[in-house]
């Protein structure tokens, strides 16, 4: 049996030995109280933002990383009391030495819970792996390409699978980073579309996206996974170091260490202002009479003439041969 020092920190709730310090909440919790708090917070986020309805068919975006695996477990837990149908989609971008590890975790976790899993890869969807695409176009825009292509494939596959919702494992750290990045890039329209339930415009071609971990810090997700026997792969994406997000992540974590609660306060401040921003985006869209149409190049849904993926591919062409969807 593991040895616990008598003078170790105690759980704020019950006085038993603590397992984790939550500086953002100025508390320390034992495993049992942390697990209860964690699950209650995710369920409350889903309930308050009306993310799920009875009978929903939910496509779970499952990378096999800790966030999506924990989200899958939480949705499975929720499905015991709210009748929803789950299936998972894993997208293999084709990142050598990285994605193959998390794919195994995704398969294992789905098998454990009896959730059907569909695995698709960039090569089949787009004719090229991410590695091959970036070899031709350079790695500086790796996350832009990967993010846009993953969203594109996930929406298409979820729609084809008859999903009412796509669940995305973005945690509150991701949200705080995105809010900050959009401010730093002066992209208010993106921020207007962003939220626990994404999208301003309703269109059947876009499957609604929900983020059950919207108010859950990334460190808590890792701790929950460790405490509850959920597989964690500690590998970092080899392209992450090229990302602007990496810079913002480090900046916010430094601020968090000095001023605990900073990241959650950013998310909550964003939520307070979001309705105003959404109204602004709606007004602007209506003024321009913008509607969801189809991309003239690939036929997928887009609010512009050409969708984000086709625009990226056109703006950053391959150095040697043309790349077609």
């Amino acid at each position, binding site marked *: 049996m593991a040895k616990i*020092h008598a003078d*170790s920190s105690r759980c704020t709730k019950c006085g038993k030995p603590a*397992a*984790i*310090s939550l*500086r953002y909440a100025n508390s320390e919790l034992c495993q049992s109280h942390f697990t209860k708090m964690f699950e209650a917070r995710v369920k409350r986020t889903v309930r308050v933002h009306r993310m799920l309805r009875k009978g929903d068919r939910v496509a779970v975006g499952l990378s096999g990383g800790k966030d999506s695996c924990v989200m899958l477990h939480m949705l499975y837990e929720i499905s015991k009391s709210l009748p929803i149908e789950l299936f998972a989609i894993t997208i293999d971008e084709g990142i050598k030495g990285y994605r193959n590890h998390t794919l195994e975790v995704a398969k294992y976790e789905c098998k454990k819970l009896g959730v059907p899993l569909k695995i698709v890869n960039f090569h089949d969807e787009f004719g090229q792996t991410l590695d091959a695409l970036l070899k031709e176009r350079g790695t500086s825009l790796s996350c832009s390409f990967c993010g846009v292509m993953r969203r594109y494939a996930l929406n298409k596959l979820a729609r084809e699978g008859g999903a009412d919702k796509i669940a995305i494992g973005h945690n509150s750290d991701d949200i705080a980073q995105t809010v900050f990045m959009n401010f730093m890039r002066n992209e208010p329209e993106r921020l207007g579309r962003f939220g626990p339930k994404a999208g301003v415009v309703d269109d059947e071609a876009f499957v609604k996206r929900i983020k059950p971990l919207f108010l859950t810090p990334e460190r808590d997700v*890792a701790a929950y996974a*460790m405490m509850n026997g959920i597989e964690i792969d*500690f590998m*970092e994406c080899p392209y992450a170091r090229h990302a602007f997000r990496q810079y913002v992540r480090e900046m916010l974590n430094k601020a968090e260490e000095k001023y605990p609660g900073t990241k959650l306060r950013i998310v909550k401040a964003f939520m307070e202002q979001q309705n105003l921003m959404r109204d602004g985006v709606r007004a602007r869209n209506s003024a321009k009479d913008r509607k969801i149409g189809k991309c003239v190049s690939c036929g997928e849904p887009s609010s512009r003439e050409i969708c984000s993926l086709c625009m990226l591919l056109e703006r950053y062409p391959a150095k040697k041969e043309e790349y077609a969807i």
Partner: protein
Amino acid sequence: MEITVDGRKTKVAGASDVADLLVKLKLNSEETLVKVNGRLAPNGAKISPMDDVKVMRVIFGG
């Protein structure tokens, strides 16, 4: 004392608790979790050279 950081063994001198250990390793407590003798431990958990201490960086790009 000998500890493990992300699976690699390393030596640290004079750390009395988890928070102190992370400062000595120049690691951000917001990005790490620490296991002492196989169980997750809070920042204030005391540690000694007899303990099995594992530090894991859990926040990264994926």
